[in-house]
C-alpha cells in the first residue's frame, strides 16, 4: 500500500535505530518483508544521515516501529528537501560541469544543452514526484564520465564506484566503463605504461569498494547477506508492466509460466550478453570518448531490454547517457527521452502525476525544439549515419528521402504517445482486461527501444570506421 516514500522513510528509521550489523538481516526489529533495505551501503549511509537531521527536527519521524506509515505536511517537505539537496549537491553540478567541458561548442549551445538535460522530465518526475534518489547515483556516474573525459581515470573510477555502491542498478553502466578503461590500457601497451595504469585503476576500485563496505567486513556472512538483498533473484523475470522485451513478449507467450526461473535467468543473461557484445568489443578495441558515451547508451539499453528483474524506472539509466549526447544527435536524443518518459506513464498515473507529466514533457519538447531546432536536423548526416548510409544506400534506393521519412515517423510516434497518454488518463479499461492500457504503453515503448538499440549500435559500430577514415584523409 505504501511506496518508495515509505521505503525511504523506513530505511531512515532502521538505520538510525539499529546497529549496523542488523541493517540487512531479518530480526524482530527489522522485518525485511516490510520495505527491507535492498540497496547497497551508500544508500544506507545516506538514510542514516537524513535520519540524524530528521531526529533534530522531529523524532517522531523515525521512531522505531511507531513511525510506520508516518506522513505529514512538514515531513513531506523534509523528505522532498532531502532529494532536492542531494540533487543540488551531486547531479546538478555534474550536469553543469559536463556542459561547461563540452568541446567545440558555443556558449549558447552549452547553456541550452544544460537546460535540456536538467529539464529531462523522467528524472524530475521519478525523483521529485514519485520519490526516489536516482539523481545521486546518476550524478556520481556522470561525475565518472566527466572525470574520464578529462583523463582523470582514477577519480573517474572512484566516482563510478560510489555510483555502484549507491544503487546496484548502476551495473548497467559498468561494462562500458570497464571496457573503455581496459581499452585505454591496451592502447598504451600492456607491458609498459598500460599495465601500470591498469594496476592503479584496479587498486583504486578495490580501495573505493573496501571503504564503502568497511563496516560490513566484520564477517563474511554480513557481506553475503547484503549481496543476497541486493540481487534478489526470487523476484521474477520482471515486475509490473515494464517496457522490456520479456514483458512485451509475455503478451503473446506467458514466459513466466512456461519456463522455470533458473532457465529464465540463463536466458535473460544470454540475451543481454549477446546484445552487449558488439558494443563492448568495439569500445575495447578502439576506445574513444564518443564511443564510450554511445556504448553507455547501448549497453544500458541492452540491460534494460533483456536483463532479469528490471523496473520501469531503470530506463533512467539509459536516459542519462542519452542526455550526454543530446548536443550531438539532438533529434534522436529528444525522441528517445520522450519515449522513455512515456514508458513510465502507468507508474506516473498511479502517483497522480498526470498534470506534472504533461507539463514537464511539453516544456522539455519546447526547450529542445527551441534550442536545437530538432526538426531541421533529420538528415542522415545529422543522425550520425553518414557512413552507414553510404554503405546501405546502394541496396535500398527507396530510402533516399530519408529526412522526410524520419520526421514523419517522429510525428507519428509523438501522436501515438500523446493519444495513448490521453486514453490511459481518461478512459476506463474494459473489465476483462484491466491492464490493457499499461500493456499498450509498454509494448509501444518496447518497440521504440528496440529500434533505438539498433540505431545506437549502428552509430557506434560504423562511427569508428568513419573516424579512422577521417584520420586517413587527414
Amino acid at each position: 500500500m505504501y511506496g518508495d516514500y515509505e521505503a525511504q522513510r523506513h530505511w531512515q528509521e532502521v538505520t538510525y535505530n539499529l546497529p549496523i550489523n542488523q541493517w540487512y538481516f531479518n530480526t524482530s526489529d527489522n522485518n525485511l518483508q516490510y520495505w527491507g533495505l535492498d540497496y547497497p551501503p551508500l544508500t544506507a549511509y545516506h538514510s542514516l544521515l537524513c535520519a540524524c537531521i530528521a531526529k533534530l527536527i522531529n523524532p517522531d519521524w523515525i521512531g522505531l516501529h511507531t513511525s510506520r506509515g508516518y506522513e505529514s505536511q512538514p515531513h513531506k517537505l523534509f523528505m522532498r528537501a532531502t532529494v532536492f539537496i542531494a540533487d543540488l549537491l551531486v547531479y546538478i553540478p555534474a550536469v553543469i560541469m559536463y556542459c561547461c567541458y563540452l568541446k567545440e561548442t558555443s556558449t549558447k549551445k552549452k547553456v541550452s544543452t544544460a537546460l535540456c538535460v536538467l529539464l529531462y522530465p523522467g528524472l524530475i518526475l521519478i525523483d521529485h514526484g514519485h520519490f526516489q534518489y536516482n539523481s545521486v547515483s546518476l550524478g556520481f556516474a556522470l561525475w565518472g564520465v566527466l572525470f574520464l573525459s578529462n583523463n582523470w581515470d582514477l577519480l573517474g573510477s572512484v566516482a563510478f564506484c560510489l555510483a555502484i555502491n549507491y544503487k546496484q542498478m548502476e551495473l548497467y553502466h559498468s561494462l562500458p566503463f570497464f571496457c573503455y578503461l581496459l581499452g585505454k590500457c591496451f592502447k598504451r601497451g600492456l607491458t609498459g605504461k598500460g599495465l601500470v595504469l591498469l594496476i592503479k585503476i584496479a587498486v583504486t576500485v578495490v580501495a573505493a569498494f573496501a571503504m564503502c563496505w568497511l563496516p560490513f567486513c566484520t564477517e563474511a556472512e554480513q557481506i553475503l547477506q547484503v549481496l543476497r538483498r541486493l540481487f534478489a533473484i526470487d523476484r521474477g523475470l520482471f515486475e509490473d508492466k515494464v517496457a522490456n522485451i520479456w514483458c512485451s513478449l509475455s503478451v503473446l507467450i506467458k514466459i513466466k509460466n512456461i519456463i522455470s526461473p533458473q532457465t529464465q535467468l540463463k536466458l535473460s543473461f544470454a540475451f543481454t550478453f549477446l546484445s552487449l557484445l558488439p558494443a563492448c568489443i568495439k569500445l575495447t578495441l578502439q576506445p574513444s570518448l564518443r564511443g564510450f558515451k554511445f556504448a553507455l547508451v547501448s549497453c544500458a539499453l541492452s540491460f534494460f531490454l533483456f536483463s532479469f528483474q528490471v523496473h520501469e524506472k531503470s530506463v533512467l539509466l539509459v536516459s542519462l547517457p542519452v542526455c550526454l549526447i543530446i548536443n550531438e544527435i539532438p533529434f534522436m536524443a529528444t525522441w528517445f527521452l520522450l519515449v522513455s518518459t512515456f514508458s513510465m506513464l502507468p507508474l506516473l498515473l498511479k502517483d497522480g502525476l498526470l498534470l506534472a507529466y504533461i507539463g514537464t514533457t511539453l516544456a522539455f519538447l519546447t526547450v529542445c525544439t527551441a534550442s536545437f531546432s530538432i526538426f531541421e536536423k533529420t538528415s542522415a548526416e545529422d543522425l550520425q549515419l553518414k557512413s552507414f548510409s553510404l554503405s546501405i544506400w546502394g541496396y535500398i534506393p527507396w530510402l533516399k528521402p530519408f529526412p522526410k521519412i524520419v520526421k514523419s515517423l517522429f510525428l507519428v510516434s509523438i501522436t501515438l504517445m500523446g493519444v495513448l497518454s490521453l486514453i490511459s488518463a481518461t478512459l476506463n479499461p474494459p473489465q476483462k482486461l484491466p491492464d490493457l492500457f499499461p500493456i499498450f504503453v509498454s509494448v509501444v515503448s518496447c518497440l521504440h527501444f528496440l529500434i533505438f538499440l539498433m540505431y545506437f549500435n549502428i552509430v557506434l559500430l560504423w562511427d569508428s570506421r568513419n573516424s579512422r577514415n577521417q584520420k586517413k584523409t587527414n
Partner: protein
Amino acid sequence: MRPATAAFRTVPAGSPLPVCACAVAPQRFCQGGCDMAVAATGGGSGGWFPALALGVSLLKCLLIPTYHSTDFEVHRNWLAITHNLPVSQWYYEATSEWTLDYPPFFAWFECALSHIAKYFDPEMLVIQNLNYASYATVLFQRLSVILTDTLFIYAVRECCRCVSGKRIGKDLLEKPMFVLAVLLLWNFGLLIVDHIHFQYNGFLFGLMLLSVARLFQERHLEGAALFAVLLHFKHIYIYVAPAYGVYLLRSYCLTENKADGSLKWSSFSFLRITLLGLIVCLVSALSLGPFIVLGQLPQLISRLFPFKRGLCHAYWAPNFWALYNAVDKALAVIGVKYKFLDPEKMQKAAMTGGLVQEFQHTVLPSVTPFATLICTVVSILPSVFCLWFKPQGPRGFLQCLILCALSSFMFGWHVHEKAILLAILPLSLLSVQRAKDAGLYLILTTTGHFSLFPLLFTAPELPIKILLMLLFTVYSFSSLRTLFRKNGPLLNWLEILYLTALVPLEIFCEIVFPLSPWKLKLPFIPLLLTSVYCALGITYAWLKLYVSVLTESATVRQKVE
C-alpha cells in the same frame, strides 16, 4: 494601415515648425520603420517568443495543485452569483462575506466563465456551497487564469515590438526585446499572485500593457478604449487614469506645439476630443448603464469603494503608512517606557497592530480616508504637471503612469501589497531602455517582490517562492547588467547593501523567528519587519524616480532651447 499615425505625422511635417516633430520623435520608442523590422526579427529568430510563453504557461500548469488563498473562494462565489442570479441582484447578494466588489465587466466575465464551469463541476456554481474546492473546481479556476493570460502574452508581444532595436547585439540573450519579454512573462510577482495566491491580474495587466503599446504605436483611440474597458474590469486602475487623461489631451487632442514646446491652443482638435469622449461614454454606458437603469448605482459604488476597511491591510503594504504606523508604534513603546504616556489609555491599542483591520494610532494623529486622498492627489500632481507642460511623447507618459501608480501605492487608503505590480510591470518597459531606469527597476522589483512573500505563508510553498524569486532576481540582475555593460554599475554600494540585507531578513523571518521564543509573544514581528524594511526601499525608489523624471524634463527642455 494606421490613419491616426499618418495624420499625426503629416501635420508637423507640413507645418512651419518641423522642429517640434524632431524634438519629440527621438524620445519615442518606436518609429514606423524600425517597428516593422523589429516585428520581423521577433518572429523569425527561432521562435523564441512562443517558446518563452509556452514555457511559462507550462510552469503555471505545474503550480495548479499549490496553495490558494481566500481569493479563490471569492472568485468561486462570484461565479455562483453571476450564474444563478439576475443582473439586478448581483450587487445585493450577500450569502458569502466575499460579496461582488469589482465593476460590472468583471462580473460579466465571471458570468461567461460560469457557463464553461458547469461542464467541470456544477456544484461550484451553488451559492450556498461556501469554500467549495473540489479538484475539478481548482482545475477549472486555475486553467481559466492560465488561458486568459493569453491576452497578457499578446500584450507583451506588442510591447516588445515597441522596444527600439538600436542596441541589437549578436546574441539573442542580449537583445532588449528578449530581456523585456522574459521580465514581463516570467514576472515573479504576477506568477505568485495569479497562479499560487489566485487572482486574475494577468489578463487585466494584459489590457493595460496593450493600451500602453497602442499609445506607443500612436493608435490613441484604441489605447483609450482599451483602458476604459480595463477600468470597468477592475477599478484599481483608476490610480493611473490621470496619466492617460492628461497624455491623451496633451498629445492627442492638441495636435501641435509651439516652437519652445509649450501649448498651442489653436491646434486643439474638437473632433478628437469628441471621439475620445464618445469612447469613454460608450464603454461606461455599456458597463454601468444597466445598473443606472435599475437605479442601483449608489449600491454598486458602495460595494466598489468600501471605506469601512482600515487604513492598512492586515499585512501592511510597504508604503508610507507602514512607516507612519511603525513610527507611531515606536513612539508609543518609547513613551510608555520613559513614562511620557499613560499606559492605561493605550491598552486598547496594545501590541496587536498589524493583525487587526481597524488600526488606532496612539501617538500620531489617526489618518482618515480623506487625508489619504489628499496625499495621493498631491503626490500625483507634479508628475501630471510634468506630463502636461513638458510632454516627451509616450515615454513621458509611461513615466507619469508609473509615478501615478507608485504615488497612489505610497499614500492610498487600504492598499494591498499586490498593487506594487501596477508599477513594476510598466517599469519593465523602461528598464530595458536606459541604465538609470534599469537600476531603479532592480531596486523596486526586488523589494516589491520580496514584500509579496507574506502572501504565501504555507510550508510547501516556501521553497517554491524562494526559488522562483531567486530565479527571477538573478536573471533580472544578470540580463540588465549585460544589457548595460558599457554604462558602469547599475547600483551604488548602498543600494546593493540594502538589497543584500533582504537575505538575512528572510532567513530571520522564515527560519530563525519561528524557532525563537518570541514567536508566541510577538507573532507579528516578521510581518512588521518585512513591511517596514520594504517600505524604505520602495519609498527610495519612488523618490529617485520622481527626481529623475523632474530633472530629466528640465534638461530635455534646455536641449530644445
